[in-house]
């Protein structure tokens, strides 16, 4: 079992996400995360999918995605040559007794405090999955009140892109 990242450009119109997620469901593919958002060209959306599986699963996912009419480009992104980020917003309970300790942790992880109340802190964290996981783990001891997490987004390093490779 390995982790794979798949990058896609798709037509930006309603129903595209349903087609893609529906195809995953009916072919029994399990994915870890799926991110989608419009690109600088409003007719196109960019998707990043991460999945855990074997080469067979990756090959089938890429080939079946290629067949969908609304999918313009799809390919695997090689882990060694991409930059990837996730973002979380995390609300943790904080009191005068432990607030400074939490702030220290936030600073060490180079995250940001974006809201402050007498009983809680709201923290924005971005980074690779491993950093995000470690930070969430650390925050558990203070009591996580709420957490919201995007999936991974990835770009190729250098000038390489989905459309020129």
């Amino acid at each position: 079992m390995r982790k794979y990242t798949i990058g896609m450009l798709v037509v930006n119109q309603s129903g595209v996400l349903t087609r893609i997620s529906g195809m995953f469901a009916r072919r029994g593919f399990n994915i870890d995360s799926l991110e989608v958002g419009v690109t600088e060209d409003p007719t196109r959306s960019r998707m990043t999918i991460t999945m855990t599986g074997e080469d067979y699963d990756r090959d089938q996912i890429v080939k079946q995605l290629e067949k969908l009419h609304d999918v313009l480009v799809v390919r695997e992104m090689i882990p060694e040559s991409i930059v990837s980020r996730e973002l979380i917003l995390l609300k943790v309970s904080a009191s005068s007794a432990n607030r400074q300790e939490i702030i220290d942790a936030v600073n060490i992880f180079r995250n940001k405090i974006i809201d402050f109340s007498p009983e809680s802190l709201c923290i924005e964290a971005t980074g690779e999955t491993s950093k995000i996981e470690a930070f969430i783990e650390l925050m558990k001891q203070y009591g996580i009140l709420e957490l919201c997490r995007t999936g991974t987004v990835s770009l190729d390093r250098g000038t390489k892109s989905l459309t020129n490779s």
Partner: protein
Amino acid sequence: MTGAQIVIETLIEQKTEVVFGYPGGQVLNLYDELYKNSHRIRHVLTAHEQGAAHAGDGYARATGKVGVVMATSGPGATNLVTGIANAYLDSVPMVFLTGNVPCGLIGRDSFQEVDITGITMPIVKHNYIVKDVTKLADTIREAFRIAKSGRPGPVLVDIPKDVQTAECDFVPAPVSEAVIRNRYGEEQIAKAGEMMRASEKPYIYCGGGVVTAGAEKELAALAEALDCPIGTSLMGLSAVPASSPRKLGMVGMHGIYTATVAKSRADLVIAVGVRFSDRATGNKNEYLKNAKIIHVDVDSAEIDKNITVDLGIVGNVKDVLATLLKEAPTVRRPAWWEEISAIRRYEEENKAKQDEGFTPYRIIDAVNRFTDADTPVATDVGQHQMWTAQRYRFEKPRTFISSGGLGTMGFGLGAAIGASIGSCRRAVLITGDGSFGMNLNELATAVSQNLPLVILIMNNGVLGMVRQWQTMFYDRHYSETVLNRKTDFVKLAEAFGAVGFRASSEEELNAALTKAFASDGTVVIDCLIDRDERVLPMIPPGGTVNDLVIR
């Protein structure tokens, strides 16, 4: 022009000659235009939308053209679903047009409203709901292009009623051309050449993709050069004439013994336009363990999907085969053919004797004497389908019209209607009493269209295929497979305005066939066969060639 006019003009522009369908509230405007344009485009009214879908499917299979089907919103659209799935599983090029409630009523659970694009999403190549009349013509053109490009399949276009009444300019366009990409390079062809030259016992496994691509000649030429036998999938059956000495017949669960066993002895299998369905492979871990496999298909997702192969070549099967021919050694293989002859002798000596008395094989042989090489022969699904695939001598491509992937009981009558209309010929339907009972309402269509159909019902009073499994794997618990119906198919045929005969002997059958083939109308022949007739040989599900039951 109104949207409805645009739909009809675009269909005509795309060379649509026939539309199969059924009117209703949300397609009234489309039907009004069909009425005004009846001299330019023919509409065939069926008894049920499912029948229309299967008729369009049979039409497309028999002609290679895109089958076009029209239905209203709600139940009209949902009645198409089995037919759409059937076309999807067998890669049949079709365009389905449905009406829907006006855009303003969508999402409000209006009368006869369903989300048909949502419902059909997993069983179409693509689908659309058109909410802007200016995009209507191009969407339909795109639907035709998608339906016939690459690996063909069904496309659905849902058109709300207000889009049918809205107006815009219509700009004619040429017929949408199919796009078929070749995605192989010299490297793969060279490797295939090496594999072909290294092989002593090559075998070509031919599927429906060969028929779709019209690559029968290229396939035959490659087999000739390699001096190798050909086995086919159910879908590829008509790609190779029965009279070819290279054709061993269908392989798989109910395949011909020699075809299946020879395949398992081959050292190289060139699989062309097949998808290695579980019904064809049995146990995948044991399948062709000792052979190298070259897989040629237009759909890249089929390579390594079900069976991991040594070499995949993605492209137009016709082009690939022509290219492979240049790399193929021209050799004679007496030892390989002697081995095949020995397998055949074993088969002849050991197979179940199924041609004594009024048996399915004898019925098929009798039909075969009345038909010619161009007669489309449709089937339903079950024992009669396998008997037909095993026994009928198909000589020309697109003459075998059968539901492969979905295995749709009730497919046959609609399909035979479509095949007869498409080929402008008498069509034969070989069916069973179970399958025929599912959609026999389409007899009304056959009669009202004055179609020369010969319908043979292999009537054994049971759901034979399921019963056969119950016999073999469920301790003869014949749960709900004994029909005990009182249906008189002769009277039923007459009630529909067709002609009916009953045959319980070969003499009666010959007499009935003589009259049927002299008639210009629809004739039903109720053939009474024994309920214990089995389909043999059989490889039990998940089994291997070693588990093959020959008698």
